[in-house]
């Protein structure tokens, strides 16, 4: 029997490999809107027909079966019985009627596995932090008792509580680098300009004969 996986937001997955397991005959498709879905069903139709053969081995109604018996004009096959029959009206629609009937037949006969029924419960923020704290405490207890504890902690000094925040923050801005570079250059030039302003001689010759 073929299986269809349907989620509650109308994603229809017709799953797995049509070639490997002829028994299951399943293909995988993503979510698509109704018109595109109909087109896919159209292309799927021969495949579905093969599934059909599996599902109805004795041969159910097929697309070529007449809706009314042309000989007596009264009887119809039992599944399509109508009271007032107009010949023109009984011409089956080119693709629509069959697709819809096949789809409804599939919907009624196959097992549904709703993959979205089970919702994963995500961790809350405080739960996450609590768990992280518990685990780190347990780890520290185990590490402290073992002889290799000190070797493990020697990688970084404990200067920062959260080194990843510091390391991930923005580096020094280019403007700052430019500022200090220019300031240093001008200061070096200014220091080179340092010169002695000669005011008075330090050594004065006296008139000593």
């Amino acid at each position: 029997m073929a299986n269809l996986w349907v989620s509650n937001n109308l994603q229809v997955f017709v799953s797995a490999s049509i070639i490997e397991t002829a028994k299951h005959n399943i293909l995988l498709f993503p979510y698509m809107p109704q018109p595109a879905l109909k087109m896919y069903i159209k292309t799927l139709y021969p495949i579905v027909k093969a599934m059909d053969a599996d599902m109805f081995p004795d041969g159910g109604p097929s697309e070529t079966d007449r809706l009314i018996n042309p000989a007596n004009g009264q009887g119809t096959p039992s599944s399509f019985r109508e009271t007032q029959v107009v010949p023109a009206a009984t011409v089956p629609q080119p693709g629509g009627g069959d697709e819809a009937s096949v789809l409804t037949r599939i919907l009624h006969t196959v097992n549904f596995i709703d993959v979205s029924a089970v919702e994963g419960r995500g961790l809350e923020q405080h739960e996450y932090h609590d768990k992280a704290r518990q685990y780190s405490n347990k780890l520290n207890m185990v590490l402290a008792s073992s002889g290799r504890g000190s070797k493990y902690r020697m990688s970084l000094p404990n200067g920062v509580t959260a080194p990843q925040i510091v390391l991930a923050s923005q580096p020094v801005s280019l403007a700052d680098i430019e500022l200090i570079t220019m300031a240093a250059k001008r200061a070096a030039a200014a220091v080179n300009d340092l010169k002695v302003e000669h005011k008075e001689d330090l050594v004065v010759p006296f008139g000593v004969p």
Partner: protein
Amino acid sequence: MERNLEKHLDDTFRLPGIAGVICTDEHGLCLGAKGVATRETSGHIANIAESAARLNPNLPPPVIAIESEGGSILIKKEGTITMGIYKSPN
């Protein structure tokens, strides 16, 4: 005779966001200090710049940025002098 240097330090100090400037020579002698920069830090700043420059002798002296909650200090060695700028946090 240090008029030019003083003027330069003054101009740099008046820029927005700067809390202090300091200029030292290669031995740590303070050539000028303004704002929050004190004379006593001149030796440390010169030493930091010298040590950082020795990390990569083939390259020109790098810019050193020391960041903390109280702001950041930018240090660069150029020739014989070392310049330090104290930036306030913003």
